[in-house]
């Protein structure tokens, strides 16, 4: 499900660091009044739009904090007139069911995938950026091409393969699938970053007779930290939020949260407690990561990819 465009938005001259508020030109008093009124209207419109984006998630949170009986009788917004109705019953029900196990499965899938993608992609990216070998440019173009291959293409072949090898349904199977489909973007991102490392640093290290592995581990990898952070957060969120790969490759004992919650969708009304609290818990960690590492998140996205 990685969607990537092979180029960061380019054509951006670097002299545009000036402030933004300075957009409107100076005018007479009448003009200023018009601006002021216009700006008031803009403020109102933006508040409304902001609410459109904020309120649905807020609704989920309130629903998760009320009982099924209350939720089936009235909308969550009545909370503003009846604040006493809040309860954590839904969360208790959720955690006493199969959710806790699926939460750990999500962690067991996400963390190894992220580590593996970073390690394997960084090595390949270093080779693409700083080593000469025949067919290098063509091989990298293949990586660029693979950026947007739909994962649907691999579901059936890999399911058959896993069946033959005997890892169908297992966590390692899910992890390997994620790693492989995370690699094109990861290699692309890191190679573009590594290319910018000053050649003098590497040449000095090579002159000193350092091995390639040493250079990679002690020069390139540390210098690449900003890009690796972007990649890491992206990869983490992508795998954490995945549902399709889990639906196909994780059996019930190894299923992550997304698959567990999906299996509860059929009785949407009666499972509202589990679904709302589960969905809310599943999005808490991505939201914390997002707010904490927002800068890397946006960087990763800007450099040409989205989940």
């Amino acid at each position, binding site marked *: 499900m990685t969607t990537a465009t*092979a*180029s960061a*938005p*380019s054509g951006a*001259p670097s002299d545009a*660091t000036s402030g933004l*508020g300075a*957009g409107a030109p100076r005018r007479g008093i009448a003009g200023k009044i018009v601006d002021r009124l216009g700006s008031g209207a*803009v403020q109102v*419109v933006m508040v409304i*739009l902001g609410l459109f*984006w904020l309120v*649905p*998630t807020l609704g989920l949170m309130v629903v998760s904090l009320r009982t099924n009986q209350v939720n*089936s009788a009235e*909308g969550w*917004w009545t909370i503003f007139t009846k604040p006493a109705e809040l309860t954590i019953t839904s969360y208790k029900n959720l955690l006493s069911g199969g959710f806790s196990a699926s939460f750990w499965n999500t962690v067991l899938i996400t963390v190894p995938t992220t580590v593996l993608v970073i390690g394997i992609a960084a090595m390949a990216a270093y*080779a693409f950026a700083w*080593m*000469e070998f025949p067919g290098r440019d063509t091989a990298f*173009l293949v990586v*660029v091409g693979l950026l*947007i291959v*739909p994962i649907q*293409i691999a*579901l*059936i*072949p890999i399911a*058959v*393969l896993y069946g033959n090898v005997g890892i169908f349904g297992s966590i390692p199977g899910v992890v*390997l699938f994620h790693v*492989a*489909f995370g690699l*094109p973007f990861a290699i692309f991102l*890191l*190679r*573009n*970053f590594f*290319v*910018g490392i000053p050649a003098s640093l590497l040449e000095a290290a090579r002159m000193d007779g350092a091995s390639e592995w040493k250079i990679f581990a002690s020069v390139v990898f540390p210098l690449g930290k900003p*890009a690796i952070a972007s990649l890491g957060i992206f990869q983490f969120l992508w795998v954490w939020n995945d549902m*399709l790969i889990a*639906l196909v490759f994780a059996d019930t004992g190894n299923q992550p949260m997304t698959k567990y*919650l*999906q299996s509860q969708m*059929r009785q*949407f009304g009666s499972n509202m407690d589990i*679904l*709302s609290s589960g*969905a*809310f818990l*599943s*999005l808490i960690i991505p*939201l914390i990561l*997002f707010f904490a590492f*927002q800068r890397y*998140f946006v960087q990763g*996205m*800007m*450099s040409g990819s989205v989940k």
Partner: protein
Amino acid sequence: MTERLDGPKVPPATTAGGAATGPADTPPKKRRLGPSPAVAIAFLLPAALLLGIWVVYPIVYSIIRSLFDAKGSGFVGLGNYATIFTDGGMLTTIRNNLIWVVVAPIIVTTIGLIFAVLTERIKWATAFKLIVFMPMAVSLMAAGVIFRLVYEQSPDKGLANAILTTVHDTFSSSQGYPEARPREGDQSPVADQGGAVVTKQPAQAGQPVLIPIVGVKPAVMPANAAPAKAPQPGNALSGVVWFDFTAGGGGTSGQVDGTEKGLPGMTVEAVRGDEVAGTATTAEDGSFRFEGLPAGSYTVRLPKANFEAAYGGLSWLGPTLITPAIIGAFVWVWAGFAMVLLAAGLAAIPRDALEAARMDGATEWQVFRRITVPLLSPVLLVVFVTMIINTLKVFDLVFIIAPASVQPQANVVALEMWRVSFGGGNNQGLGSALAIFLLVLVLPFMIMNIRRFRRENT
């Protein structure tokens, strides 16, 4: 922590992967001390193996598998592809994908552009961007649950219909009383006339008009209905509309008894000849009064609309609206992406060009249309293409938001691929053909990416 969503201050060239060390177009050509190709191969090997086995081999496998039947033993040639383009359900699926590809990218890009422009005019731009961008971090599964709640049919539970009915009722105040009817009989002062209720005798000011109604369902009885009370006869035409039914029996038909409730929100018309001379709405106790009506006798009428069901909003999750409804959720998820990219692009536009145009007397719209948009077109293209690719692959949102019974009408190729291969269809030949179909759809963008990369790196 907020510097990036504050992004306009950072030109995209340095936000990109190249970061501070510069863009990717400085090819390391003049290296002398390179390792041997064998070392390079060793560094590439893990990635090459994974990509070879999990990505490249499946493409070849799927092409071959798509030429065989469900079991994988019988060769059917292009039969599976023929099924894609002839089967009725499949055609709905393809039609839906077409709607997605045409509609969703345009909406997302437009909204992203509007947001990017508007955020330049508010002081709390960073907070706004954080809010709009937030859904990007949330799983599509969770976004699906969020929108299942928003689209609930009942206006008492679903936010979308709650807003719609509130807006609707603001402009059209009639409270619906479906299946309510006038008390029939010779004694009754009113009669049914083609769905409307009219008084049998002409009414004048000074004598309250009694309109007894029966058959009001408890479910539609408004919570604010107060005990009915006929208004004091004044010099205006007035009266009362009430539920002529005393709970537990008792009470006299056609008379306002102590506990009987008024029917608020009824539209009442005073009719003379064929013309409506005045309109009033009943109060909580069911009373109404026509102010400023010329003296004389009128027929008092409760129009048919009073007895139709109240407006209940739209059935978002029904077969007709399901795809637009899911596209709405998609826009909610992706608008932040478009906005952040476009805001960074906007920040990179040289201020001089805009100022010069304004000096020459161009209006803000002309500046936007003739300068901003053309200068922004590379970023607009990136956003647009990314959205096209995303809509082609859309899966989670449809799977989660569309109720099981409506999934055939909401179906898209990526979902159908999963369904026929794993979700009960058990036809991996057809599934492979659908996967190849998806691959063919993204192929032009793959080629576009490769071309652009070559152009920018030579």
